[in-house]
């Protein structure tokens, strides 16, 4: 690629690790990330989930090279073409099987959301099955959203960019985080079959009003009455505000994963028990706000508390205003940046704009050569102290589709 002549972009620290890798892949620039947890006495360098993400990138791309230093504190990543799940590279039968390691503390959404950002620019459809002893489908204490929220709050956003065909996220097996928040036993199938050259330019400046709330309550390996209790509490809070509130309940048995021991090499154990709630509020203009709370791995929290916290979290997210929930900011702004050379505008809440992750994203994007964002106060009827971000697309789009 063109990146051969350019020097690598230099970043430090493990923050925003995945999005740096994603934007590197999308723009084709080599990156050099150093000082990844250098001062941690026990676990310096890359964490298991970060290594796993590098592996995933390796599987969906062709020709990418990565070098990890001896201690794991430095990574050099030279991106290749995003080929997707074409047979022959990493896929068998058109499906990439990605195994997550036992020690994974992050939910699958940690991998899914960046993958969603890559997928529209792939050469062929992306089909990935996440399996293995580290797949956590629920929300996690590390701050990842549940897979249900990804499906109901992140994937519909692609519709606004003209990406809507053949997108599926199938939860084959649910799992909450295992003991100490490590590992799970879930299985998730992700299909992203809509590839395009350039996403549409987005102008989203009317947040609208919340018209409905949907949600999924899940309990894995525990009684389904937990679901009913979470739902009742959450509805008790939300129903007076939005009458069209409905939360679906999903009860599944705990995954049964092999746990070999010295005395019992064929031993198995149940893992990932717990419950949780995912709520999504949809506004009249199609803006989505989500909230996710799951029972902590240590337990000891009543379903009523989970339901209440989740409902309040949803209200908080909505109260931040704007058209984008904080969790969806990287996806929306990333897609806008990758769009055609045109000015797209999006209204976000002041608090969302001021969040650390958003600022970090802006800095990283600027480093990758994206023109800076234009910020101005929103005016007119839906002001509420919101900020309008104007993003100029880079017009790179899908390199794999450029030839065709």
């Amino acid at each position, binding site marked *: 690629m063109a990146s051969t002549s350019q020097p690598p972009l230099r970043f430090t620290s493990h923050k925003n690790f995945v999005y740096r890798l994603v934007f590197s892949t999308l723009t084709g620039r080599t990156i050099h990330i150093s000082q990844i947890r250098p001062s941690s006495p026990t676990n310096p360098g890359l964490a298991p989930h970060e290594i796993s993400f590098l592996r995933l990138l390796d599987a969906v791309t062709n020709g990418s090279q990565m070098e990890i230093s001896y201690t794991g504190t430095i990574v050099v990543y030279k991106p290749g073409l995003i080929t997707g799940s074409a047979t022959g590279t990493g896929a068998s039968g058109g499906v990439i099987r990605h195994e997550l390691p036992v020690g994974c503390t992050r939910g699958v959404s940690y991998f899914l959301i960046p993958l969603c950002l890559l997928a529209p620019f792939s050469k062929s459809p992306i089909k990935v099955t996440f399996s293995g002893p580290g797949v956590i489908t629920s929300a996690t204490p590390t701050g990842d959203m549940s897979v249900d929220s990804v499906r109901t709050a992140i994937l519909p956003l692609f519709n606004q960019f003209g990406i809507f065909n053949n997108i*599926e996220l199938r939860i084959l097996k649910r799992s909450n985080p295992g003991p100490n928040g490590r590992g799970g036993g879930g299985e998730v199938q992700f299909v992203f079959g809509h590839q395009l050259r350039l996403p549409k330019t987005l102008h989203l400046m009317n947040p609208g009003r919340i018209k409905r709330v949907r949600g999924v309550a899940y309990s894995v390996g525990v009684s389904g009455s937990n679901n009913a209790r979470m739902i009742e509490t959450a509805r008790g809070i939300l129903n007076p505000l939005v009458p069209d509130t409905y939360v*679906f309940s999903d009860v599944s048995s705990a995954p049964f994963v092999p746990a070999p021991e010295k005395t019992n090499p064929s031993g198995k154990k149940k893992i990932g028990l717990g419950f949780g709630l995912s709520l999504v509020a949809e506004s009249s203009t199609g803006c989505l706000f989500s909230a996710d709370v799951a029972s902590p791995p240590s337990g000891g929290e009543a379903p009523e508390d989970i339901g209440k916290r989740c409902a309040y979290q949803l209200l908080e997210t909505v109260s931040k205003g704007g058209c984008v929930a904080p969790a969806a900011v990287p996806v929306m702004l990333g897609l806008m940046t990758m769009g055609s050379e045109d000015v797209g505008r999006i209204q976000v809440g002041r608090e969302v704009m001021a969040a650390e992750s958003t600022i970090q994203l802006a800095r990283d994007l600027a480093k990758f050569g994206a023109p800076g964002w234009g910020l101005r106060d929103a005016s007119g009827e839906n002001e509420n102290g919101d900020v309008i971000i104007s993003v100029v697309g880079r017009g790179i789009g899908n390199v794999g589709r450029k030839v065709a």
Partner: protein
Amino acid sequence: MIGKRKRDTAIVPRATTFDDEETPQTNTESSHDIFRKFFEAQFQPLDVPGAQITRRDDAEGESDEEASELSDTGSNWDGLSEGEDGPEVVQIVEHCDAKSLDLMDKKARKAFMTAKPPSSLVDRTPAKSPKRETESDKDENEIDADHLKNDLALQRLLKESHLLESASDLAPTGKNRLKALDLRMQELGSKESLYKQRMPSSHRRGIQAKAEMKENKRRKEARENGIILEKPTPKANANSSKRRERGVGGPSIGKFAGGTLNLSKHDVAAIQGSGRSSRGRGGSRGRGRGRGRGRGRR
């Protein structure tokens, strides 16, 4: 008394997990309240005599005394509604039938809990579609319906044209109409023709014989008058040509009766014939002939 204590302690630990700092008196009170609520949810609201309540209210300070009082009443459980403040407090116990709700929202669930990301547009369309129909839609529908009708008529004509005597008459009447209906029924999956009746075999044979006689007579007369008729249709000898439907698991050869497999000479010949051909020497007649022909050609 001791027995009562035990029961009390059985209740208390649950409350202590929630609030350790509270005095034991309120603990027992709240636990009583919980117990009463649970009981009411299970059965029916307890009707507590007012006098008793007031007395409880008065004596709220001394929990020990109350405990003893409770024990005095023995197994009479109405003492548990002690936590009630006054008659104006109304307990609302909601009974929500989760099952019926689930049934109602099965459709919504199916739409939401799929692998696809839920889209609001998809949700809206089913609500809208039955509501309104514009003029153009109506016209299109009419045209579609017309096409469909014509198609059906053509299909029927093609299938039933052999019943029609004159080309002018497209809608069959009388006997022909009934026959056509019968054909359609069969096509739609009726098991038997309407005209296949159950009757004694002597009747059926009589009918068949009569039909044969009629046909023969017609042919004879035609021959005598020098009229050339169509060739007689080959007689469908159903018994010999068609393989009878056998049950599953029966023998593929021979007859199984009385616990023995009986092979006829024919069956034995069939088995041996195949065996001999594999042996290949000397051969059956067929084989010999085949060879001879081969030689001749060379």
